[in-house]
């Protein structure tokens, strides 16, 4: 009798860690989602908290660790391509000097209580964070490919201009789950601002091509 009691006690104590270990991976995702969402202050404005929401593309990219199978990739690229919008006047190439400024600016859009951007601060494209562009800027990143001589190498045909605009507007239309943000889709840059960056990339007079 005594032995059986001890055995029973062992059984009731032992399974707890074992159970925790055997939970399926999907359960980890829902638990993680819960602790992640629960990690933010209650007094965050609703529009801040919206930045934690995921659209279908974000959800799929996260799920496949940015390397989705071909079927998923095609689905994402097709849907993203359909999202692209153009300036009202239809002109896809703007002022490279404006584009040059936007490419260098890394501020804007920071929220939170510690170090938010002051209201009205310019939101830049921060292109140099990831790409090499004009020769004179040595502080460039390498997360994306070098875009030095972008227009010199590719020309500035209508087709190249449209491709460049589309890529900046929605990078995922070409490569699902790429590291590059979807600048137009999120209204991070306006269509007009995108045309300036297009000019910075393709205009023969721009330092991207001239130097």
């Amino acid at each position, binding site marked *: 009798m005594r032995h059986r009691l001890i055995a029973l006690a062992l059984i009731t104590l032992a399974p707890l860690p074992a159970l925790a270990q055997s939970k399926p991976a999907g359960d980890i995702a829902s*638990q*993680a989602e819960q602790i*992640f969402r629960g990690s*933010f202050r209650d007094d965050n404005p609703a529009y801040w908290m919206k930045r934690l929401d995921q659209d279908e593309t974000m959800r799929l990219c996260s799920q496949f660790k940015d390397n989705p199978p071909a079927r998923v990739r095609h689905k994402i690229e097709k849907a993203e391509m359909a999202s692209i919008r153009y300036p009202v006047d239809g002109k896809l190439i703007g002022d490279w000097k404006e584009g040059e400024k936007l490419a260098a600016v890394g501020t804007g859009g*920071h929220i939170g209580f*510690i170090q938010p951007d002051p209201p009205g601060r310019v939101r830049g494209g921060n292109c140099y964070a990831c790409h090499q562009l004009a020769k004179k800027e040595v502080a460039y*990143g390498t997360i994306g490919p070098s875009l030095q001589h972008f227009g010199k190498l590719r020309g500035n045909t209508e087709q190249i201009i449209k491709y460049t605009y589309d890529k900046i507007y929605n990078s995922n239309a070409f490569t699902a789950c790429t590291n590059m*943000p979807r600048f137009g889709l999120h209204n991070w840059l306006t269509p007009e601002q995108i045309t300036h960056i297009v000019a910075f990339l393709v205009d023969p007079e721009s330092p991207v091509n001239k130097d």
Partner: protein
Amino acid sequence: MSARLRAALAVVGLGLASMAMAQGSTMDEIARYREMLADGNPAELLELKGESLWKTPRGPKNASLEQCDMGLGPGKLDGAYAQLPRYFADTRKVMDVESRLVHCMVSLQGFKYEDVTRQWFSRPGQESEIEALVTYIGGKSNGMKIDVPARHPEEARMAKMGEYIFYRRSGPQDFSCAICHGQDDKRIRLQELGNLTTRAGAGVAMSTWPSYRVSQGAVWTMQRRLIDCMRQARWPEPKYLSDSVIALQVYLQKTASGTVMQTPGIKR
């Protein structure tokens, strides 16, 4: 191969070599900049201060922190930082250095949680006791290997949740931690980025915090580092000591395990 093609290739080769050299000298000078800073790390000032804060009886209970159990037993600090986060039976929680330190300041010294965490990081003219204490505790693991195997089921669960959060994309820039920290040999501007999914990359990152940041004029703790990454991702900031920040640390420390601690570091 035709002579012309050979000549063309030679030109391309030269071009590439000179480009690599130009970039090489930029990175060499950055390396020189860092080398000149390394000898004379202002974090050492904070280490001194942290030691005094650790040993001085303070708070409503007029106790020092010398009986604080950072995971290796009361008062045992040598190597403790390198083995955190870990599961603590007394609180039934996986805790990182900072959550455990705050727990000790509350339970041993009698401080109110709100009071000790109010100044969890410094601002110009407003110093942070937590920064000083974490710098001191970190220094006590200098030269020791990071060892967070995450074998306890709760630790293992936190590591998996940390990995999930690492790849979780959201916000107006489609960011996740993996965007910047999921590949080898990349830079953002001139800052090299560790591939935190590998032992080498996570090792470099995790072994050098806490670190003095010259751009901030302050030592940053790992909580501060991770919370600021989320700010840069344009997300709201998670709360100090929140589970998702601890989960990320378990995932990263587990990946970095085996790397020798070199702290306090000094960074841009």
